[in-house]
């Protein structure tokens, strides 16, 4: 299948290794990956901060950039949820019915990575190797808006060498929330503190999730604490094999399980 990769603005700009891992994974599974050069953002940050009028142009750019794609995959539950639940509304409210229809049509072919792998490609064992102790944080929009359910767990359980440990209080929000993390920095940090306590209680080497944004927040907090636990996107774990480990890291577990 020919898959168009939507990196998302955040991953493209500050976490390129997540998109690269997504592309490598899809290629390894035998699919052709294309990366439309004109892609930018889904518009979610603008919409969720109150700038829905300004988001119309962003949605229009997204629809132009991906026009004609057979399937679109993004390594983010949150951005895909915005494409599914917000883009058409934003266009329609601005009176652009044509754009709304185009966005809806495109949303029908847009998938979050774990949904694409399990539902569209029908694979749970992607042939990955990742010899680490890992805990999974189900991000709110993947969990409640996209309802990805246990798909990420199915994928992680099939990874060779990976020890999956349950995260206590997994379904509680980590406190990222987009601009909430800055506008309500104190409350966001209080939520993060509890999430980090739960992550650290698992003694996992790695905390993973399907959203680079939440991981930037959790990982930023863990890094500030000089905690040994790092955050790694689900795509990076699934892209890892005995031959090619991403990102740059040792294949041997740093902490014996």
């Amino acid at each position: 299948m020919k898959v168009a990769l939507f990196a998302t603005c955040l991953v493209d700009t500050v976490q390129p290794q997540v998109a690269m891992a997504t592309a490598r994974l899809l290629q390894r599974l035998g699919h052709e990956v294309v990366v439309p050069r004109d892609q930018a953002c889904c518009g979610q940050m603008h919409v969720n901060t109150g700038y829905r009028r300004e988001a119309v142009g962003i949605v229009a750019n997204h629809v132009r950039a991906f026009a004609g794609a057979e399937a679109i995959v993004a390594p983010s539950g949150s951005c895909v949820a915005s494409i599914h639940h917000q883009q058409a509304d934003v266009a329609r409210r601005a009176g652009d019915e044509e754009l709304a229809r185009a966005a809806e049509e495109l949303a029908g072919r847009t998938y979050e990575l774990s949904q694409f792998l399990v539902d569209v490609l029908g694979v749970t064992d992607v042939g990955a190797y990742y010899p680490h102790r890992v805990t999974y944080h189900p991000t709110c929009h993947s969990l409640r808006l996209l309802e990805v359910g246990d798909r990420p767990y199915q994928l992680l359980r099939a990874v060779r060498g990976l020890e999956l440990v349950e995260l206590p209080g997994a379904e509680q929000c980590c406190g990222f929330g987009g601009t909430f993390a800055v506008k309500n920095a104190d409350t966001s940090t209080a939520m993060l503190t509890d999430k980090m306590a739960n992550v650290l209680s698992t003694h996992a080497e790695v905390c993973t999730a399907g959203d680079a944004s939440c991981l930037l927040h959790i990982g930023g907090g863990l890094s500030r604490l000089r905690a040994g636990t790092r955050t790694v996107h689900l795509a990076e774990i699934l892209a890892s094999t005995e031959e090619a480990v991403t990102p740059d890291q040792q294949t041997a577990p740093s902490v014996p399980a």
Partner: protein
Amino acid sequence: MTATVPPKAPTFLGLPTAPRGVGHLRGDQSFPDAARGALRDGQLRANLGHATSTIRGKRARVVAEVPDWEQLRAAGKALKAATMARLDEHLEELERQVTARGGVVHWARDANEANEIVTRLVLATGAPEVVKVKSMATQEIGLNEALEAAGLDVFETDLAELIVQLGEDKPSHILVPAIHKNRAEIREIFARTIPGVDPGLTDDPRRLAMAARQHLRERFLRARVAVSGANFGVAETGTLTVVESEGNGRMCLTLPETLITVMGIEKVVPTWRDLEVFLQLLPRSSTGERMNPYTSTWAGVTPGDGPQEFHLVLLDNGRTAVLADEVGREALHCIRCSACLNVCPVYERAGGHSYGSVYPGPIGAILSPQLTGVEDNASLPYASSLCGACFEVCPVAIDIPSILVHLRAEHVEAQQKPTAEGVAFKALARAMSHPRLWHLAQRAAGLGRLLSRGRPTLPNVLPPPVSGWTRSRDLPTPPRKTFVEQWTEEHGR
């Protein structure tokens, strides 16, 4: 009345909203400022964490045992939507039925009018005091303060509401107004404020309840006037309903000679049968019980049985303005169960007082700004990480996250002068709409790596608004090349 007349009455969608200077819908501080203080209170965090997780668990257990919960939810939502679509007709029917059964109906445009009506009615009875059933509507309009200003004594009879009143505190939760206090703190309040209380009072819940019971019993028996709210008002029969756990409501609704009920206009339901749905949804969502211990219903007056004078005050106070908003009007479907508060990670940490309104938590963050006009509560729609836990538990399926996002836009679009944030977001939107500009913006962001001087993270001290992030979280050093650049170099177009 001591209310100051505002220079310009607040409006929402051109309709009058809850007036300023009266009632409890607006805080003195923005949410982030109020939360900053609350978050430092370790005892508060512990009390709230314990209480909300207990009630969350109870709710989850009793909801899980109802096989048709989703259908019930859908029915609740549909009933509310249908009622709101013909609210005027149902309210007029309610007035006709209450009047036919010997009650008197009063219409109050706002908090000031409602307070004036109730004060006048109480003064006319000649009674020096009133007993009160827990009611959000009367908290919203500041009725206690109005009655006290007229020289009347007001006694709250709900245990948690009594704790708040005796402690000269404010409610912090819709169902459990004293949720922010633990047993030891409650013992201290009772020992200090209840006349003639046993000096050996301990923090044993039973002893505390008995002390309150003794204090209240005397007041029930001598009360001549009671004021209540209403959970539901049935239009076809003129029946008012109060659901409660303690029996204090039943006392107030049956013993006094005069009963005055203040009901928000959105509490009307068309038919008696509609209660079938709501009386299943409410207790399980609210207290986590299969059924609430007391459900009182009454219509007008019954000679020789219960109050012989009954007044119903129908309160607008901004509700019509909420109804005018096609997206936001769903907030009026709320049946005040408080399930959304109990699951909200923001409420659990910041506490109810941070919201500045008697309606805290997720529902408060969408209801208060609409009742007052968004600009009077502009920080509340932003007091959420949009995690969606509230929508998931709401018994009438109010899409709270979507309404929060909608109100954020209403706030942004209400700005007359350009704000720094607005300018930045507009510039960013322009860049994100034009690939060439976007690539330039990304290159500029990438230059941030120079600040790191080769380290993997950016410096901790950065100017606002980035400081909001970097005070508690590291930011990784931006990469030399974006993903799209890397890919294009590898693969061409």
